[in-house]
């Protein structure tokens, strides 16, 4: 086996890992920032707001990530109009294109997750806030969005794992992430099993770390859903002895 080739080229893998993490975080930020307003529009009563967003999320969720990456990098890059515009310098950078494409993809899924969670919210909370006279923005900020985040946590954790998987495709648009580093090593030294198994293990660790982060978040924010703990049962008051005896006699008699 050629594990020493992998070990000798550890810098390529390290640099690829750094790129993967940067892409993941960048896409998460873009995704979250756009998904919140999108989800609010999606659940709006006005058809003018909800239909365009529904169509947009249908298109984004129906597009394979590979196609989105190709479209943003090669497709938009080909168009004169885009090149001349203010987007030109942004799209000239492959890493930025990757972050944008991944951000768009995750925004679509996240918006649908958030929209579903908003619809599950007990309407009573919103009614109470309205009756307090809270302006709409305050309701969103203090009541709706925090409650939505809480409910969305499990599904969102899943979405982040899928986003991590999606980052592995950016080597198709010349961005060298962890998978790109493995493919480069494979092409340079004509070995395949060692580099791919190595990055498989690294992705596994990344995924487990992400799941751990979300488990901690869930423990904190979904505390109210946890089963009752042992010390709470012990603290419950006990029935006085004489009362118990009398009921016992009554039942048997």
């Amino acid at each position, binding site marked *: *086996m050629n594990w020493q080739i992998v070990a000798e080229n550890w810098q390529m893998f390290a640099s690829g890992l750094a790129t993967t993490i940067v892409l993941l975080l960048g896409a998460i930020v873009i995704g979250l920032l756009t998904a919140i307003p999108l989800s609010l529009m999606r659940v709006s009563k006005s058809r003018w707001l909800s239909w365009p967003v529904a169509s947009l999320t*249908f*298109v984004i*969720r*129906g*597009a*394979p*990530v*590979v*196609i989105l990456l*190709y*479209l943003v990098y*090669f*497709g*938009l*890059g*080909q*168009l004169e109009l885009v090149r001349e515009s203010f987007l030109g310098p942004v799209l000239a950078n492959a890493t930025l294109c990757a972050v944008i494409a991944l951000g768009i993809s995750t925004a679509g899924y996240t918006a649908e997750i958030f929209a579903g969670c908003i619809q599950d919210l007990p309407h009573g909370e919103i009614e109470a806030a309205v009756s307090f006279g809270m302006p709409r923005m305050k309701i969103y900020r203090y009541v709706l969005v925090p409650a939505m985040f809480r409910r969305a946590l499990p599904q969102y954790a899943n979405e982040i*794992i899928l986003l*991590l*998987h*999606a*980052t*592995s*495709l950016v080597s*198709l648009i010349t961005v060298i992430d962890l*998978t790109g580093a*493995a*493919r480069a090593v*494979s092409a340079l030294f004509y*070995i*395949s*099993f060692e580099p*791919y*198994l190595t*990055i*498989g293990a690294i*992705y*596994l*660790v*990344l*995924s*487990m770390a992400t*799941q751990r982060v979300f488990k901690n978040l869930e423990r904190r924010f979904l505390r109210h859903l946890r089963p009752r703990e042992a010390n709470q049962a012990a603290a419950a008051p006990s029935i006085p002895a004489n009362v118990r005896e009398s009921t016992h006699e009554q039942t048997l008699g």
Partner: protein
Amino acid sequence: MFSDYVAMVLNGAWLTLGLAASALACSIAFGMVATTFKVSNSRALHRVVDGYTQVVRGIPDLVLMLIVFYGIPDVITSLGSLFGKSWQLNVPAFVAGSLALGFIFGAYMAETFRGALLAIPVGQIEAATAFGMTPTQVWTLVRLPQMVRYALPGFTNNWLTLVKGTAVVSVIGLQDVTFRAKYAAQATHEDFAFYIVSLLVYLALSAVSLLGLRRVSTRYRIGAASGAR
């Protein structure tokens, strides 16, 4: 000329569908096995399925496909040379894609099937056993038909994600829609147009799948009470 290339890209949809169907079959197989392990009483089998789910969540589709397509043949050849033999395993791209995608989506199907099995009212199983049905009869006459109804939403989601997942197989050289779009773009320099065309193909596949599965779901809901029962 341009329209000929568009037709070429559209023809790739057959291969995309074929691969998706093949991967679906594999994933149902993997998923059923995993579900039976998970509902069994054996702790060890539970751990096996947990390990399976962890691996699938951890390794991206592309990496798994590269391991199956390049890595495993590489290992077989190296092992062979260790023993002084020249073994070779040639995994065709279609098979590598089906197995890799089937393995990945098997874990998702296992979750869907398990949820569906648990949703069947226990009273029906008890009644069936009381009637003297053998476990196999309970499976085929009571569990499986009802499982379909409960599993359909999750199944639909998995199918849609699977169809999109086939785009990755273009990386290992399978001439699906994505592969053809790329080479049409290289030949005509009309990148934007062809990637839009391929996007439309995938959207069409999604839309048709959603409509079809909605009809199936309506049919299976005949006679069933809606809501939690």
